[in-house]
């Protein structure tokens, strides 16, 4: 009898712990908090921490470190986080080149990586990994959407991107859907600040539309100079070219620019409105798309941690794959390569109550995956 009681208590307590899962989970966030790209990292961190805070889960701890946008530094931090901080999940890297330096090593050591932004093709196709998830998109997605839009609207496009892997992926993605005539295809130096020579070429090329992918400060410089040049050709780009982190610095020069995005601040859903209000209340500014992506990444980790122990990699992975979250973006699920399947919208820069922001125009893609998933065998 005594034995039976003891067994029953044990079974009960096991069942209870199975429900609560009070297993501690440590997340290592590596992101860019200094230098020119700091705005993106700050939004990533703030969006992520908002979701962690809202979850109220006291068993989750987050350690954050600044990679200064340097791959070698990111690798050092990742090693330190894995070995001495003993984190279970890594996240937060903004840039594809930094991600490529960190992820292969991290997953080889059995750590999960949930990307809040960077999504190079190399990790979406043959190089996909069971422990690597992307909560943002695949790098090509927003460019593909603009290609689709341009194909319907324009006859002769001039396209421009910086000369580095994400820049090449961008124009490749654009051309996957835009099959019309190209007035020019130009690759600029990474970090270039003066685009007078390129703008002169655009004017002379006879293009009826311009697609540019220039993240961060490069995009600010380009848009200001383009507006000053008096060239009147419509400009479009992927969402991050006109995201909330750069719009104030571009100013009215951005008005009317078309972009693609998985989310815009004017989304008319309860989840999106609540997220927008919570973020503004917490940080007193409008969130950018990076904040939304990081918010969802954190939600994914929180949801999986509530149902499985991270020590049981297969169970934790299965919970992540279910993507049981309420995303401000709306529909969100994972593809076979653990990258999102989601809707992508056309947005336009407008001025609302004196603040520059993005307004949704139309849906470009419904349930859009990526071109690499078919090569992923996991």
């Amino acid at each position, binding site marked *: 009898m005594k034995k039976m009681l003891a067994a029953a208590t044990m079974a009960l307590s096991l069942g209870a712990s199975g429900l609560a899962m009070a297993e501690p989970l440590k997340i290592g966030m590596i992101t860019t908090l200094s230098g020119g790209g700091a*705005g993106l990292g700050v939004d990533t961190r703030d969006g992520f921490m908002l979701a962690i805070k809202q979850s109220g889960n006291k068993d989750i701890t987050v350690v954050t470190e600044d990679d200064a946008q340097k791959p070698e530094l990111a690798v050092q931090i990742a090693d330190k986080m894995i070995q001495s901080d003993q984190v279970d999940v890594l996240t937060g890297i903004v840039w594809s080149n930094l991600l490529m330096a960190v992820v292969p090593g991290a997953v080889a050591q059995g750590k999960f990586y949930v990307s809040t932004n960077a999504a190079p093709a190399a990790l979406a196709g043959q190089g996909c990994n069971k422990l690597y998830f992307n909560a943002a998109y695949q790098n090509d997605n927003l460019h593909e959407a603009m290609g689709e839009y341009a194909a319907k609207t324009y006859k002769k496009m001039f396209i421009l991107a910086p000369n580095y892997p994400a820049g090449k992926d961008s124009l490749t993605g654009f051309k996957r859907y835009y099959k019309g005539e190209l007035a*020019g295809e*130009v690759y600029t130096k990474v970090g270039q600040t003066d685009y007078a020579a390129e703008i*002169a070429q655009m004017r002379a090329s006879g293009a009826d539309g311009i697609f540019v992918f220039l993240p*961060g400060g490069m995009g600010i410089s380009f848009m200001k100079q383009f507006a000053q040049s*008096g060239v009147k050709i419509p400009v479009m780009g992927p969402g991050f070219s006109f995201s909330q982190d750069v719009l104030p610095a571009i100013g009215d020069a951005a008005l009317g620019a078309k972009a693609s995005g998985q989310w815009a601040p004017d989304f008319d859903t309860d989840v999106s409105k609540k997220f927008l209000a919570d973020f503004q209340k917490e940080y007193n500014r409008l969130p950018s798309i990076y904040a939304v992506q990081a918010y969802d990444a954190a939600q994914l980790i929180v949801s999986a941690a509530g149902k499985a122990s991270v020590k049981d990699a297969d169970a934790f992975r299965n919970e992540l794959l279910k993507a049981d979250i309420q995303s401000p973006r709306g529909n969100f699920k994972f593809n076979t390569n653990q990258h999102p399947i989601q809707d992508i919208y056309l947005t336009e820069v407008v001025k609302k109550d004196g603040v520059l922001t993005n307004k949704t125009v139309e849906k470009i893609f419904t349930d859009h995956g990526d071109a690499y998933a078919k090569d992923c065998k996991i």
Partner: protein
Amino acid sequence: MTTALALEQLLNGIQLGVMLFLMAAGLTLIFGVMGLINLAHGSLYMVGAFACATVAAWTGSFWLGLIASLACAAAAGAIVELAVIRRLYDRDHLDQVLATFALILIFSEGTRWLFGDFPLYLDIPALLQGVVTLPGDASYPVYRLAIIAVGALIALGLYLLIGKTRLGMRIRAGESDREMIGALGVDIRTLYTLVFALGSALAGLAGALVGALQSVQVGMGEPVLILAFVVIVIGGIGSIKGALYGALLVGVTDTLGRFLLPQFLALFVDPSEAGMIGGAMASMLIYVVMAVILAVKPRGLFPPAHA
């Protein structure tokens, strides 16, 4: 390619060169007079841009911002000279590089602390908005023409200052023999502070002028600093004249390279490929030019007589 486009690109090259000259003039002046390698010159450029953007946002006037940029950069330069640089003149170049590199970090993080992580907004003044029509039906932004004019004025001003005034005489004397001019009773410490403040003010002016074209953000000075070093090495370290010619050469080479190389390559390979290879080659071009010039003239185009 039309003549209009070629003319426009040439102007773009000259305008880039003029900007580089404003940076390189201060850098080469400081090196010429004090023998100091100042890596923090790019930070003073950033100070100028932030001062201009802040004052322009407060007052709504770009011109007040421009004055503020000169004043703030000169003041920051003078303070830095008095507090830090003064102790470095007798040390070797490695110590100078280390100390001024530390200054870059202090300036960058200090600016972030004061202004936050996001880039500031600065627009060109209403007077210089718009475009002018050039011969051959090309059009060109007024603001960029104004930058070229400012650069030409500064070059002329520096020429007169150094060639025709008492201060300029002392600067030249300081360049050729530091001990002797001190022995002759010239207050060399004040002279150094003045020269440093002058060089800083030029960097600040460049930062403010460019700030209206680009993004005013932390770390904006360092890419320009690298180009400015290329310019003074090509021109001959310590030579203002060399800095002017070096800057124009780098500006025009870089612009025309970016524009012509991909078009030239497109004759042989497909346009997408040509864009990629041409873009990569164009970004190397100025360094190739520098290497060739140094191979022929190891001390640059216009080496100062004493060095």
